[in-house]
C-alpha cells in the first residue's frame, strides 16, 4: 500500500481516506460539521439505513476494551457526508446497503437487516464482500477509518475517541522530549 512519502504525499486515496466520499466544498463541510456535533437526528439517512452503516462500521473498528466506531459516532460522519459533500455517492451507498440486506437474508432466512445478525455472520458477509472486491466494502471501510480519525467537526471522532485510539494528542505544540528514545537527551 502506498505510504505518504514526500513524493506521493497527495496520493491519499488508498491510505485511509475514502476517495469517492470526500471531494468536498469547504463551506459545506464546516456547516455540516457544526450541525453534526449536537445532532442526534440524521440529516439524510433513514434510521434503518443508518443502523446498517453503523453495524458495518462497528465491525471495521469494533468496540472491545476500548471504544470503537459506534462510540466514535462514525455513522454521523457518514450521514453528514452524504447530506453535503458526498452527495454523488448516495447511489453507491444505497446499492451497498441493499447488498448488505440481501446477503443477510440469504445467510439467515427471514432477516430484515444486516444489523440484526449476530457478529460472526456480519463478519462473514463482510469478508465475502471484501473477497469479491465489492466497491462498497472498500469505500465504506475507508470512510469508517476517516470518520473516526478526522477532526471531530466532521461529525465523527466523537470525544476524540479516534485520536485516543491511535494515541494522537491534538495539542499541536510540543517540546523535547518527544518520545522514549530522546528522553535523556
Amino acid at each position, binding site marked *: *500500500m502506498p505510504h505518504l512519502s514526500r513524493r506521493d504525499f497527495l496520493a491519499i486515496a488508498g491510505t485511509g481516506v475514502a476517495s469517492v466520499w470526500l*471531494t468536498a466544498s469547504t463551506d459545506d463541510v464546516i456547516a455540516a460539521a457544526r450541525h453534526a456535533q449536537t445532532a442526534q437526528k440524521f440529516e439524510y439517512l433513514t434510521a434503518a439505513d443508518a443502523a446498517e452503516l453503523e453495524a458495518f462500521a462497528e465491525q471495521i473498528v469494533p468496540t472491545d476494551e476500548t471504544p470503537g466506531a459506534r462510540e466514535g459516532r462514525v455513522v454521523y460522519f457518514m450521514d453528514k457526508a452524504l447530506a453535503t459533500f458526498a452527495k454523488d455517492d448516495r447511489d453507491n451507498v444505497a446499492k451497498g446497503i441493499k447488498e448488505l440486506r440481501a446477503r443477510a437474508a440469504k445467510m439467515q432466512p427471514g432477516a430484515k437487516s444486516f444489523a440484526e445478525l449476530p457478529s460472526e455472520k456480519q*463478519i462473514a458477509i463482510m469478508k465475502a464482500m471484501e473477497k469479491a472486491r465489492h466497491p462498497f466494502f472498500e469505500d465504506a471501510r475507508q470512510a469508517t477509518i476517516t470518520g473516526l480519525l478526522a477532526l471531530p467537526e466532521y461529525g465523527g471522532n466523537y470525544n476524540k475517541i479516534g485520536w485516543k485510539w*491511535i494515541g494522537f494528542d491534538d495539542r499541536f505544540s510540543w517540546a523535547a522530549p518527544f*518520545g522514549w528514545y530522546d528522553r535523556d537527551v
Partner: protein
Amino acid sequence: MSDHTHPRLAPLQQATVQYRPDDEVDFVIVGSGAAGGVVAKELSTAGFRVVVLEQGPWRTEADFVHDELKVFRESLLTNDWNVSPNTFRKTAKEKAKQQPCLAYGRGVGGTSVHFSANFWRFKEIDFKEASVKGTIAGTGFTDWPITYQDLEPYYTKVDWEIGVAGAPGPYDPPRSRPYPMPPHPPKSMGVLLEAGAKKMGWKAFPAPMAIASRPYQGRSACVQCGFCLGFGCEVRGKSSSLVTVIPVAVATKKCEIRPNSYVRKIETNDKGRVTGVKYFDAEKKEIFQRAKAVVVCANGAETPRLLLNSKSNLFPQGLANASGLVGTHLMFNGAGNSVGVFEHEVNGYKGIVATRIVWDLYEVDNKLGLVGGGGFDYRFDPTPAQSAGNLPPKSPTWGREFKKLMAHNYNRTVNCFGHTSSLPVPTNTISLDPTVKDAWGIPAIRMTFEDHPQDLKLYKHFAEKGEELLKASGAVQAWQQPVESTNFSVHLLGTCRMGNDPRTSVVDKYNRAHDVKNLFVVDGSSLVTCGRGQPTMTIQALAFRAGENIAKFAKQHDI
C-alpha cells in the same frame, strides 16, 4: 509603512502599491513561490517597479488549519484537479489519461508555504557529476554552466535571509558564513537514526531545515506542532517566501502582489521582445499587464506550460523554445523507502519532519555501476486519517486485530526516507494536452514520465539499505516499500534547463532565455541535475543570483 520596525512583523496581507495594467512596469514576475518571492525582493529593493502575478490567493495564518481533509482532499493550498486537470502517460507511445499527477502550492508563497522545509545546499559534485562520473546514453546528464563556488554566496544569502537552522556536518561543502540558527532538538527519531548510522559505520548529523529554531527576524520560533508537510504554518516558524522575502518586497512600496491572477500568455512584439503578459483576474476577465521585462517563476510544470502556450509568428514552437527543449528533461528526485516499528514510543507525529540526516551514500559505490546517490532521514509521514496505510505488509485492514495494530503502531513507527538523485531524460516531459483543458479553457498540463532503469536500481538500493539501517537502529520489524516508476510528483525540475549552448539549453547561466533578451526564467525548471532530494534551497540560491544579475543588467540597460 506600519508601526512595526521590521517588515516581517506586519500582517501578512497588506495593501500594496497598485500599478495600472497599462503602466509599463519594469518587471512582471509570474509566480510568488520560493523563486518568485526572492526575485521580487531583489528587484524591488534594487529600486525597480515590480508586479508579481500569482494565480492563487494571498493567505494568512488564519487559513493554515491542521485539517488533513481540507488540505489533501480539497486541495486547500494546492492546485485543484477539478478545475486544473492533469493528464499522464508513461511514454509518448500512449495517449495520456486524465489523472492527478503533480501538486504545487497555489497561492502567495507557492509550495514554500506547505513544504517540509527540508533544506540543504547541493554539493560540489552535483554541478559537475557528468564530467567526473561520465555521461549516460539516452539521458541529458550533463554539467551545470556554473559551479558550487559560483552559487555559494547565494546559498549563504538564503541561509540568512530565508532563515535556516542547522549545524556543520561531516560532508558539508565549504561555506562562507555559519548557520544563522542552531539545529532543532533531535526527537526520538533522530536519536534512533544516530544509533543506526553508527552501527552501519555512517555519520548522522543535524538535518538543515528552513524552520526557525529561535525567534528570527521578527518571526516566532517553531512550536513543533507536527503538521509541516502539506500544511501552512500558523506561527510563521516555517521560512516560506510568504513570511520572509514577500513582506520585504512589499515594504519597498515598489512591489505589487496581485493574487488571483492566472497568467495565460506572455506577449511579444515583432522584434522578438516581451511586451507584457495576459492574465485572468478573479472574475476570469482577461487583462494585459505591460512590462519592460518578464521573469517567469511559475514552477517546473507551469513555467514550460506558459512558454509553450505563448506561441507567436516569431516563436512558433513556444516562447524561448528555439532549442525545442522547453518542457523536457523533467526530473523529480527519487526515493527508496522503508518502514520500521520500534519497541517504545517514538511519537513521530510530534515536531518537525526530520532532525537528523545521513549522507554517507551521497555518491554510491562505483561497484554498483550506478550514478548518483542520496541520503536517509527518519520521519513519520501520515497524519491520523492516513495512518492505516502505514501498517506492515499483510496486516489486517479491519476488525479486532487491525484495531489493536493501529493502536500499537501509530506511535512506534518510523518512515525511513531514502531520498536520491534521478536522471534528466529528454523524453520525460511536461507538454500541453491536445484535448483536455482547464476551467479557463487553457490546455492542461500533460506529464510524460518513466523512471530510467538505472534510477529504479538506485531507488531499490536505498530501500534495501534503509531497511538495514532501521534494523541497525533496533527496529523490531522493518520492511521495504515497493519501488516502481512513479506517476505523481511534487518536485518539478529540469524543464527549462540552464546552459551555455543555446542548442542544448533554454536559459543561460544568469537565467536569461537564450532567444529572448528581456525574458528570464528561474525556478525548478532551471535545474540541470536535481540533487539528492531537496531542490528548494538551490532554487532560491539561483533566484538570489538571478535577481542580483537581472537588476545589474537592467541598470546597465542590458535588457
